[in-house]
């Protein structure tokens, strides 16, 4: 038997002809749906491992140079970070609700919820843009671009040479300002306010924070931009996926018999949210 030259697979067997969404190599829609679920979870696992490299870099640098992170985080605005966290949590809620609406065949609700999710995503990106913009203005960028324009004084005493930290391969001087040094300070230089003047609050906890910028402070911002940047890219991809879903939903493609794409994008979106749930405390809530 000859087939259409574009479609070498056979025409549908009787059990397939009723359901346009059932692929020829699956026996039942349920089998196909379960396969999609496993596939999506595996993909999420790859995403987690993808981000794990950055979390690992964070762990290594923070373990070896805690003062860099204690110094750097004061320039992050916890309020904005918290707001972003709430926004993403709300968006996960609307996304989960959207999956439910798809299952129930409530198309208008589904489309509305997808749109709200997209708006939340834009809100998230908007706040991140504001934060990034402040960093840009302050020159607080990743290593090679780090040119802070806040006033900082170099230490008044030569920091002790610390023993080489694990993993440092070069013979470069690995001494850093140690936290103990700050106990000797009696006055604090003015720290330029962060995006919301957060740094002023840190001054009150000065006995915990180094007052002078530690060596290689730029590493904090390298880690910050790498992690939030990669996360932001995933949010942007998510927006495209959600928009695609919204268009398909408007065309009435989803219902109780077929809602797999909504479910799958929902899983993706929840992962994007979960990653931020980890990023927020690790970057913003350092003590």
């Amino acid at each position, binding site marked *: 038997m000859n*087939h259409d030259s574009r479609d070498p*697979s056979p025409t549908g067997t009787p059990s397939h002809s009723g359901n346009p969404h059932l692929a020829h190599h699956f026996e039942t829609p349920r089998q196909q749906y379960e396969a999609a679920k496993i596939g999506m979870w595996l993909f999420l696992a790859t995403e987690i*491992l993808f981000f794990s490299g*950055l979390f690992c870099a964070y762990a290594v640098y923070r373990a070896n140079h805690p003062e860099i992170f204690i110094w750097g985080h004061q320039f992050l605005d916890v309020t904005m970070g918290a707001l972003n966290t709430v926004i993403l949590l709300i968006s996960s809620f609307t996304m989960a609700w959207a999956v439910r609406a798809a299952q129930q065949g409530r198309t208008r609700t589904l489309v509305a919820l997808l749109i709200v999710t997209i708006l939340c995503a834009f809100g998230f990106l908007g706040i991140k843009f504001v934060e990034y913009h402040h960093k840009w203005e302050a020159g607080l960028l990743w290593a090679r671009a780090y040119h802070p324009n806040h006033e900082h004084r170099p230490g008044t005493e030569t920091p002790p040479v610390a023993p080489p930290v694990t993993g440092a*391969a070069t013979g470069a001087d690995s001494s850093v300002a140690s936290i103990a040094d700050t106990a000797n300070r009696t006055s604090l230089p003015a720290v330029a306010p962060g995006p919301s003047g957060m740094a002023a609050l840190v001054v009150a906890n000065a006995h915990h924070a180094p007052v002078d910028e530690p060596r290689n402070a730029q590493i904090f911002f*390298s880690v910050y931009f790498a992690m939030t940047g990669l996360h932001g890219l995933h949010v942007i991809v998510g927006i495209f996926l959600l928009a695609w879903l919204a268009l398909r939903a408007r065309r009435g493609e989803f219902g109780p018999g077929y809602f797999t794409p909504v479910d799958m994008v929902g899983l993706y979106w929840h992962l994007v949210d979960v990653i931020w749930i980890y990023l927020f405390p690790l970057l913003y809530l350092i003590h």
Partner: protein
Amino acid sequence: MDTQARDLDEERPVVENALGGVNYLNATHGWRSWAFTLDHKRIGVMYLVSILSAFLFGGILALLIRTELLTPTRTIMAAKTYNQMFTLHGAVMIFLFIIPGIPAALGNFILPLMLGAKDVAFPRLNLASYYLWVIGAIFSIVAILTGSVDTGWTFYTPYSTSTDGAIIAVVAGAFILGFSSIFTGLNFIVTLHKLRPPGMTWFRMPLFLWALYGTALVQVLATPVLGITLLLLIVERALGLGIFDPSLGGDPVLFQHFFWFYSHPAVYIMILPAMGVISELVVVFSRKHIFGYKLIAYSSIAIALLGFLVWGHHMFTSGQSNLVSMIFSFLTFFIAIPSAIKVFNWVATMYKGEIWLTTPMWYTLSFFLLFGIGGLTGLFLGALAVDVHLHDTYFVVAHFHYVMFGGTVIAFLGGLHYWWPKISGRMFNDSWGKVGAAMIFVGFNVTFMSQFIMGSLGMPRRYYNYPVQFTPFHQISTVGAYLMGIGFVVTAVNLAYSLKHGRLAPANPWGGATLEWRTSSPPPVENFTETPEAGDPYDLSNLKYDESLGGYVRRDAEARG
């Protein structure tokens, strides 16, 4: 040759050889029917052609390298060119040939057939995997050819972050290839979970599928870490992220940790499918049930998982702490155990079997010896005190060629010959196949055994010039390489010739009990006219040889009435 069922005592497919009729190769025509195909068999064939082309390219590079090394000083190229040659050889062979290798070229074709299934779980993702391979290949090769990339395939920092050259382009190519690998692995895992036929529990699956499952786990879990490593390398070069550059506060050894966290499990992506092929071949060509099925199955998973724990054995001399080195060394010794379990079980399978010395069996026997040598020399390298002397010498080069080539490539060739009748519908000339196998075997040993010796005498790897006392070793090695090359030509010509002139293959020329042999050679588009019932994949007692057919049929008295 169409044969109808002639004997009620025998059960055979209605059509033995489908070249005269409709099969997956001729069912549709035109380049679009291949370019946009969703048929796993066609995708497998496209992969096969592509990766063999990559192997040819990588092989030519190897011959160029070996030619340069005929003399201790400049022979045919400048030093910087030489560095680009070995970078290109490594990158092409690893990322374009051996990692996709058996899963993409043989697995894609055979896995659904072994399951009695119509396709993999996600056919469109399968096609996407192939196109990602093509795009990654174009990226990488163009970048390396035009961009003087000479970092070695390992891209160590700080050289890779500071040198000129099209590093970003080639690393981006490798990044894209990583997705190809991830999607193939993801597809196979879901297929094995959801598309097994009734009656085929996990422990009734052929061992090739267990091997592909273990491989797929590694592909899915390890490759993303390579992805982030390469992405960070790109951002480091483009923006000065500073994570690996000491002058910006970063740590170059961190790159090595990230890189080897993927690249060590990657070698298990390379060897596990090869071991799966061997499990199939040793059964069929010993005419005997596999010995130790469960142990072999579990050992595939054990290797896949343990492989994640030993990456530091590539970094014994990198400055990491002694404690860490000792832990990695201990774990490295550990991982030899499941590999050895497999070898013992295969040999036990052969014991008291009826050995059938065909070309695939010659490759199987070669595998035992060559992989055995390669694996054992890995233990030398895993021993800390010894590794200090052998690290970055030709001993390492010989070790990994023995396992990757002597292991994976040999098994790949064995599998290619074994499944050739199923894929092409033709039998190859077995005598010439053996000639090729013998030349490859001899040439390979001549090439790389001398490298073990010169490595232990101190010859460093990746060196363009070398002390004059190493010249005889290099020259012997180069002669071996050329002999191997000729062996490959013989093999390739033999297979190519069979496409036009080979005997038409029956459905089951070798007498295998796995399900791919229950359909015609080559298979129809939908794989099976009737979904076969799964039994014990290694119970050969139901098969008998039919002289007139030149192949095996199932004897099944219950078929009558």
